[in-house]
């Protein structure tokens, strides 16, 4: 090791220093915005008003989070998002595995038609307006199910899963068939238990999409009590109308601790992002795997 280092030319040393500095700067650019809004959400009102808060809380207090926690509208939005994420992910996994399993059977009569029907949607679709009209005409408009059914299967996930099913040894299924299982049993008892890695990857993919989805709830929801977190977040922070959800710093009586509106707004951002940060270690592992799965030609 030591000898190698002596041999390194000066230009290499300069590069290594530059490289490490660059990486530290990149990490700072990613993390500092989060640190900044966390700091403001945890700081005292006067410190925020005087502009004293940089990247660390001043006059630390959790009043903003207490109010967010006690806010019924935010709680409702959280519940709506959780419903869509949990039920939506289960629906996706079931339908995607059905689709992938059936089109992985090369010898099934009609499989070419089924595959073509699915793959074509990778290249062409009806688009935003016709899909909206269909959602409306099947009676899903202004229902949380409108966030689930129109995106119940992603063609891309079907192809990834089919690729995975196809490389499972065929003997497993043949053994099952000889034992008198039908192909539905084989899927549930043999194939799916062996496919846990790909199922986990696809599930996380869908769950993150559903947690972060903004377009669908904005398109398909009308009633405020159905709004998901992302829509509520936009109204509170980007439209800058926190009063709509009773989260206005100004509306305080003498008995309460003073909070600036910005602390409440930033607190809601953190509150809505925490679950993603929380499951991030799992996400990272499976997503990296997923990218690799996706790069296998179908």
């Amino acid at each position, binding site marked *: 090791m030591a000898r190698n280092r002596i041999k390194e*030319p000066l230009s*290499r040393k300069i*590069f*290594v220093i530059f490289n*490490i500095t660059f990486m530290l700067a*990149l*990490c700072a650019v*990613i*993390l500092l915005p*989060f640190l*900044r*809004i966390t700091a*403001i959400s945890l700081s005292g009102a006067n410190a925020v008003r005087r502009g004293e808060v940089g990247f660390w809380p001043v006059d630390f207090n959790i009043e903003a989070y207490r109010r967010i926690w006690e806010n019924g509208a935010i709680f409702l939005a959280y519940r709506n998002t959780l419903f869509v994420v949990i039920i939506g992910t289960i629906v996706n996994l079931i*339908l995607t595995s*059905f*689709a992938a399993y*059936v089109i992985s*059977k090369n010898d099934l*009569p009609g499989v070419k038609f*089924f595959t073509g*029907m*699915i793959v074509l*949607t990778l290249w*062409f*679709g*009806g*688009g*935003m*307006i*016709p899909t*909206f*009209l*269909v959602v409306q005409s*099947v009676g899903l408009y202004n229902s949380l199910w409108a966030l689930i*059914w*129109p995106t119940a*299967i992603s063609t891309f996930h079907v192809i990834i899963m089919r690729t995975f099913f196809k490389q499972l040894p065929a003997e497993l299924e043949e053994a099952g068939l000889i034992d008198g299982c039908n*192909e*539905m049993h084989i899927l549930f008892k043999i194939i799916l238990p062996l496919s846990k890695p790909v199922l986990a990857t696809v599930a996380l993919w869908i769950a993150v999409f559903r*947690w*972060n*989805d*903004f377009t669908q709830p904005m398109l398909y929801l009308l009633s405020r009590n159905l709004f998901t977190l*992302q829509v509520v*977040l*936009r109204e509170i*922070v*980007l439209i800058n109308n926190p009063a709509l959800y009773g989260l206005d710093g100004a509306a305080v009586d003498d008995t309460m601790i003073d909070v600036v509106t910005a602390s409440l707004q*930033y607190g809601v*951002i953190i509150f*809505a*992002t925490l679950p*993603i940060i929380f499951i*991030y270690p799992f*996400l*990272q592992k499976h*997503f*990296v795997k997923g*990218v690799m799965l996706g*790069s296998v030609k179908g």
Partner: protein
Amino acid sequence: MASAVSSAIKEPSVKKQKRNRLWQRIYRRRFLYLLFLPVFIYFVVFRYLPMWGLLIVFQDFRPFLGFAGSNWVGLAHFRNFLTDPRFWNVVVNTVVLSIYGIIFVFPAPIILALMINELRNMKFKRIVQTISYLPWFISTVVVVSLITSILSPTMGPIGQLFRSMGRDPINFLGRVEYYRTIFTLSNIWSTVGFGSIIFLAAIAGVDQQLYEAAIIDGAGKMKQLLHVTLPSIMPTIIIMLILRMGSIMDSDFERNFLLGNEATRPNADVIATFVFRTGIHQTNFSFASAVGLFNSLIALIFVWGTNRISKKTTETSLW
């Protein structure tokens, strides 16, 4: 002649047998068809019905009249948007943002992957990767909220910096000339780390013997990069480039919709946000669908075209 007659007599029975065998095969796999039934319904209702619904581009669709009751107007909507300056403005915005994407967003993860690959401390490398992937998982609403909080002239650190230098803070998000820069930078922020995964994998797959041979030939690190690493990961780069060039007509609805505002609309309005505004807000369903259809058709030609060019020139293609 005689054989033709005999075969004509025989044929029905052979056909019948074949048909019976087909029915047998289908019956044996009936559970598979049962599994496919919900999938089939999903695709018909939510993927193919909207395609069928695209026929409203030739109508003056009114929801209360329904599909059957609305008037047919032929290509009127296409004539309307093709002569509409707003349409050409959103096309220009979409293409310009895509070109910015190809020039600035596309190479960023390649460069990052090459730089991460040079990190020798495994722990540091892992930490950098973990942090750099994080923005990919953050919702667009939150990303735009973070940008707003940083660039806010009153609350943000940039504004504080301007004031401490005795200058008036600039409202970057309210000024049209900064829009494309902010959009592109935020796009890099969101995707650079995660995008590097695929290139890191490609770099890890390079044959180590090539490096050994290069070192014996006296190649330094720079020469190894230019003559071993880059040529080896070129197929991956080209595939990713085809995908990006193919999607030149795609616009990031969420990011443009959330990041743009009235003031920046001349640059922030792209095809998808235009379709949304004219279609959903102004309920011009037919007009907006016509714009959307035109957009998907052009996009399809781009994907097909870039793939063809790549196939001819580099023998790398998607299909």
